[in-house]
């Protein structure tokens, strides 16, 4: 009788002795930010000097897009990279289509030699604006009845469409090393906004992607880590 009464208890003791040390493994986790390193998209080993040329530009009533791009890219690269950005009057481009320009290695090689540039940055910039003012339908809560009411009203709206292509050429061979394309769209409601202000705001949003061509960057994500 005594032995049958003690057996389950003894078994419990032994089980506890065997498995108790593992019990703390059942524990928690935390979410942590991680930065995933990404190499620069263009191999810039051996590159010290960069020349920025004028860009192929779309028509815009108020802005000199090519000059704005040259100024902006020069300031950005000086601030964010260790390259020497050549401070010269930006060379003009031959009157050619974009595709012909890309194949014109002789032209790029010649300006590479003339200015002592390891890398030449050029591109095409288009900045279109469109007036989208008109009547829009909207729902609102009536302050009198408290009911949802649909009404139409006239709204001033302006749409902006920025398209940027960048081309990198070897200053030594004149060959195209890398090309990329970035686009950005925005629609503003209300009073008309300054186009130059919008152009810079939209370029500012493209900046991290653009810089990723020339310098390593980190992509921010989150992951779970187990604490025990």
């Amino acid at each position, binding site marked *: 009788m005594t032995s049958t009464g003690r057996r389950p208890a003894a078994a419990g003791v032994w089980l506890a002795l065997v498995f108790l040390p*593992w019990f703390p493994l059942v524990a928690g986790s935390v979410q942590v930010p991680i930065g*995933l390193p990404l190499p620069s998209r263009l191999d810039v080993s051996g590159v010290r000097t960069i020349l920025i040329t004028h860009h192929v530009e779309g028509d815009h009533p108020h802005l000199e897009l090519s000059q704005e791009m040259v100024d902006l890219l020069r300031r950005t690269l000086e601030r964010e990279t260790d390259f020497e950005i050549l401070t010269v009057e930006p060379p003009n481009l031959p009157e050619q289509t974009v595709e012909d320009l890309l194949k014109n290695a002789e032209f790029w090689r010649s300006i590479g030699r003339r200015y002592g540039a390891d890398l030449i940055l050029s591109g095409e910039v288009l900045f279109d604006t469109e007036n989208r003012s008109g009547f829009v339908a909207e729902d609102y809560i009536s302050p009198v009845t408290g009911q949802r009411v649909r009404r139409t009203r006239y709204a001033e709206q302006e749409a902006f469409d920025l398209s940027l292509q960048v081309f990198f050429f070897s200053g030594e061979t004149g060959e195209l090393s890398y090309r990329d394309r970035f686009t950005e769209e925005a629609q503003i409601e209300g009073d008309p906004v300054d186009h130059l202000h919008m152009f810079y705001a939209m370029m500012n949003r493209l900046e991290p992607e653009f810089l990723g061509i020339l310098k390593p960057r980190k992509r921010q994500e989150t*992951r*779970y880590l*187990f604490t025990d």
Partner: protein
Amino acid sequence: MLTFRSPASPGRTPRIRGLLSCPRILLAVALLALSLCAAQAGKESRLQMRFGVDMARRGSWKEAQYRFERALAVAPQDARVLNNLAVAYENNGHYARAQQIYLQALEHGPDNEKIRANYERFRIFYTDHLSSLQEQKGEESPEASDEDSQDG
């Protein structure tokens, strides 16, 4: 109950021999010894894990990776340790190794939702990363380039 006597005292040896001749007691002693070894390994693994997580939260990911590797040395089949090590490899840019370790973690902890969530996020990123490298480097092996550029 065991009573300890001086070495010269008669009667001790037969009593212990009698206890050890019982198979149940022998088994229990063996299990207890095994359990204590496991406990020691578990304790070591937990210490390394905690320190590793602390380092990771402070941004010292190289140290975190080292600690998770130490934890894995004593608990090589622990899905949680494998998960943490994979995350450290990711953060330190060793993507091919991270993938390998994530797959091991999933093998040992297939039902762990957090490991699955981590791996799914990593898989999306890594596929995108490899295709970018493939586009840039043409026919060059992106896998090799990835590890070459990030390791060390």
